[in-house]
């Protein structure tokens, strides 16, 4: 089944998520061939897949595909020295000479670096890696060496988690999700290229020429899909080239470009391509996105014969050259069929709070992950003996001992240590110190229901703004939840960007019931997530406490009140502080009772003034 499977690439316009998972798997198989041919040029793969036999099967094949070329694993907690190279302490200690140890990235040169749990990589690690990737060089013991590699980022993050660092994802060519593939699909494997085939394909790759038309079509498709980054069309071009080389073509055929659109462009789309759609507001200075799907009559106006329908694209080599417009249209069809299923939802959300593309939904991640590294920010090591609670700082200890080695080696009436040992004396010991300041994240749960809050929503927003300003000054993160009608939702995931918080708030509409219990539940969930990210959450509820929608989303004050109370009590069990700002015109007993059972500080809105608020926040943090 090998050869024909390879040549019969999946039809360009096959919808990905509706297609049987076997198509996804065959895509993944084809990707292995592409990686085998050009592991470096493709940038890499963002592989979204849970840990399991499917992913293992793919990785095992990847290892076979790489053959003699390096395939190194990078654990998510790797330190800079191991990543980029540095002193090999063990060896240095043994020999008494400075020994340089090559970093894993240097070892990956010419091959692939696999990032396990890539979503948990610290921004520092990501930055170091991208720095090397962008420059294609790495520091060696003396001087520099070439270091070019592809990245396979294994991402196991769930829907609600921040996922891969955007800067990293941007540089990875192919974004692929294996989540729908089942075990039995994965048993079908594709035979990899033999050594001869590989050598031939690689020499073909150098001969593949991209026409201006091809580049133009990819750029236009990217533009129509709302992809801002210019890396995307560049990477797509390389994918198309590799695919062409696999088919021994020297020019790019439609199916090469279609595959590139499907693999590279579609997953990055931020706009559903529609001819009538208004261009996003920030593009107002340029011409509207190209009309990617002209009406049929217009297509017929073109001199060339009617374009081959997408299903027949396998035979496109014989077909006449398509016009630019048709090419773009075909690419968009291929990409549109593979658009991520949640794109529409995300775009709808985005419309409520006018801001840029889907990136906004993701971009909190980097800031959040950064907090993660700030936990226990290391201070400079200090001389002292290691004991419980203070770890030995090996490097600092060695540094302290190093200058004295020559002295200590000289006979001073005492036994001379062996020449190849380092003599450590008690005075050399240094211990590690951390500053224990876990950054905090304020979670705002804002009641936007119709009941009492509607008239006071503006005031509530004002109150939140005061708080935002304070948290800005303190470099806290904020996270905004809103609840109204039958649901509570995360308006803004934890971020340090005040501008975004402000925007999210401004776009918040009012009206509907008061699903207080849902809000508290969401707040609790969010708090747990924030804590996992290494921050200390605190909750600020702005509500009058008059719940009338229960957890199940049904109306009814009694049940709604009971549910809210139950969740308030659950919050009380958590270690985190809370503040309740009562938005009712005059202090509302219901809100007071809820705040009490939550163990929250209670502040009626009429008294909300900057100063009091500041004091309340102070106690909140102190708690």
């Amino acid at each position: 089944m090998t050869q024909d499977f390879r040549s019969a690439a999946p039809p360009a316009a096959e919808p990905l998520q509706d297609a049987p998972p076997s198509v996804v798997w065959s895509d993944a198989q084809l990707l292995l061939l592409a990686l085998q041919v050009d592991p470096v040029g493709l940038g890499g793969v963002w592989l979204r897949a849970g840990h399991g036999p499917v992913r293992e099967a793919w990785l095992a094949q990847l290892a076979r595909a790489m053959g003699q070329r390096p395939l190194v694993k990078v654990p998510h907690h790797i330190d800079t020295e191991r990543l980029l190279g540095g002193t090999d302490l063990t060896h240095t200690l043994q020999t008494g000479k400075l020994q340089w140890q090559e970093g894993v990235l240097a070892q990956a040169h010419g091959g692939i670096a696999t990032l396990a749990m890539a979503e948990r990589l610290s921004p520092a690690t990501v930055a170091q890696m991208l720095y090397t990737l962008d420059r294609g060089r790495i520091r060696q013991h003396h001087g520099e060496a070439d270091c070019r590699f592809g990245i396979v980022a294994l991402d196991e993050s769930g829907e609600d988690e921040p996922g891969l660092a955007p800067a990293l994802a941007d540089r990875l060519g192919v974004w692929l999700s294996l989540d729908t593939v089942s075990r039995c699909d994965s048993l079908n494997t594709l035979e990899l290229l033999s050594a001869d085939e590989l050598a031939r394909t690689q020499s073909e790759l150098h001969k593949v020429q991209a026409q201006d038309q091809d580049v133009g079509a990819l750029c236009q498709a990217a533009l129509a899909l709302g992809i801002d980054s210019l890396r995307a069309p560049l990477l797509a071009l390389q994918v198309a080239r590799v695919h062409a080389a696999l088919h021994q073509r020297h020019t790019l055929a439609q199916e090469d470009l279609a595959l590139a659109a499907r693999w590279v462009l579609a997953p990055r789309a931020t706009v559903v391509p529609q001819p009538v759609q208004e261009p996003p507001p920030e593009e107002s200075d340029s011409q509207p996105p190209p009309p990617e799907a002209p009406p049929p009559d217009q297509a017929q106006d073109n001199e060339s014969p009617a374009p081959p329908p997408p299903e027949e694209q396998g035979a496109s080599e014989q077909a006449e050259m398509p016009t630019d417009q048709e090419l773009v249209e075909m690419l968009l069809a291929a990409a549109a069929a593979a658009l991520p299923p949640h794109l529409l939802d995300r775009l709808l959300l985005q419309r409520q709070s006018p801001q840029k593309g889907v990136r906004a939904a993701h971009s909190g991640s980097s800031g959040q992950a950064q907090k993660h590294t700030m936990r226990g920010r290391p201070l400079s090591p200090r001389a002292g003996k290691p004991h419980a609670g203070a770890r030995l700082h090996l490097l600092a200890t060695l540094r302290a001992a190093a200058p004295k080695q020559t002295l200590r080696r000289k006979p001073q009436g005492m036994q001379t240590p062996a020449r190849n040992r380092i003599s450590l004396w008690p005075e050399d010991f240094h211990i590690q110190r951390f500053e224990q300041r876990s950054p905090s994240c304020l979670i705002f749960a804002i009641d936007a229901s119709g009941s009492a809050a509607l008239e006071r929503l503006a005031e509530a927003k004002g109150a939140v703004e005061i708080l935002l300003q304070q948290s800005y000054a303190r470099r806290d993160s904020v996270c905004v939840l809103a609840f109204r009608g039958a649901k509570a939702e995360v308006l803004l995931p934890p971020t340090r960007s005040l501008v975004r918080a402000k925007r999210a708030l401004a776009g918040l509409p009012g009206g509907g019931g008061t699903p207080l219990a849902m809000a508290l539940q969401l707040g609790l969930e969010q708090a747990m997530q924030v804590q996992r990210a290494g921050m200390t959450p605190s909750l600020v509820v702005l509500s009058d406490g008059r719940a009338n929608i229960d957890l199940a989303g049904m109306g009814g004050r009694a049940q709604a009140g009971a549910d809210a109370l139950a969740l308030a009590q659950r919050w009380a069990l958590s270690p985190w502080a809370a503040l309740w700002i009562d938005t009712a015109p005059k202090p509302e007993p219901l809100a007071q009772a809820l705040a009490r059972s939550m163990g929250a500080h209670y502040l009626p809105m009429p008294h909300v003034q900057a100063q009091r608020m500041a004091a309340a926040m102070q106690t909140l943090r102190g708690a």
Partner: protein
Amino acid sequence: MALTFPFAAIVGQEEMTLAIQVVAVDPSIGGVLVLGDRGTGKSTAVRALADLLPPIQVVQGCPYGCDPAAKNPCAHCQAARAASGKKLPTLERPVPVVDLPLGATEDRVVGALDLEKALTQGVKEFAPGLLAQANRGFLYIDEVNLLEDHLVDLLIDVAASGENLVEREGLSVRHPARFVLVGSGNPEEGELRPQLLDRFGLSVEVRTPQDLALRVQVIKRRDAFERDPAGFRAEWEAANQKLRKNILKARSALERLEVGDDLLHLCAALCQKLGTDGLRAELTLLRTTRAMAALRGAKKVTLAHLREIAPMVLRHRLRRNPLDDTGSSVRVQRAMDEVLGGDGSKPAHAVAAPQPGAARG
């Protein structure tokens, strides 16, 4: 040395390339802060910066790359001068453009005990860090808004004093660290501390070009570069050379150019209007306008130059009301219209760079 994308081959992004050239003409303006989306060529432009700069003379063997003519050289050069009693041998080398990656350790940035020397020879010696490498050159921080606080503190201090003072591990070293700070980042991912913002002379905002032809050109050039870096660089060498010459010419013109009192008044009025703190904004405005005029080969500094450059200088210096949604570019434009009067006179040499403020609405 890794091959970088040639500066002259950068397509579009006029505001960013202009800002970088202006700083190359007069480094005393301070650094450039480039804010914008991913994949817009921010890092490419900054790393290509070395193309623009003529090589510098350094004292041979000096770890900090001291200027042979420096009045107060580093300790190393002082000792060498005292020992030899005559002129030190010099060396020509490119202006350093040093990358400071986000995760860099303090040791790596500031410098630390030279472990190798200590281990092998038992000598206590200072191994210079990135700050030393960047002396007399540029220090580039990608994603500067995500830089850890303790590194930011450190940079703010060194950038202000031009000197790196190391007191650690029994070492006490003081060495020159004068560099131009260049930062880039995506503002949606986090904000910059005002103190650090202030250290940047100019700030520019970049966007992905929405013009198809421009995009295609970017992709084609980049692709050509990736396929044959050396060949592509050779192809653009002449254009790079031209840019470099232009900058050299502008540098020598800098001293001759006088800024009239009327323009100084306008600068002051503009800053006053916008309520920028301190005199730094005015000083930078003055220097930048002059560098701009020099770059354009003008005989005189004119209002048009001021108008063209003012948004870059002032945009990030407005007193922050973090909850005011009005874009800072708009606020600067408004003040400019008010103080400089209407938008009547177009810049005299508007060919190369469109008026930055006007395009933003």
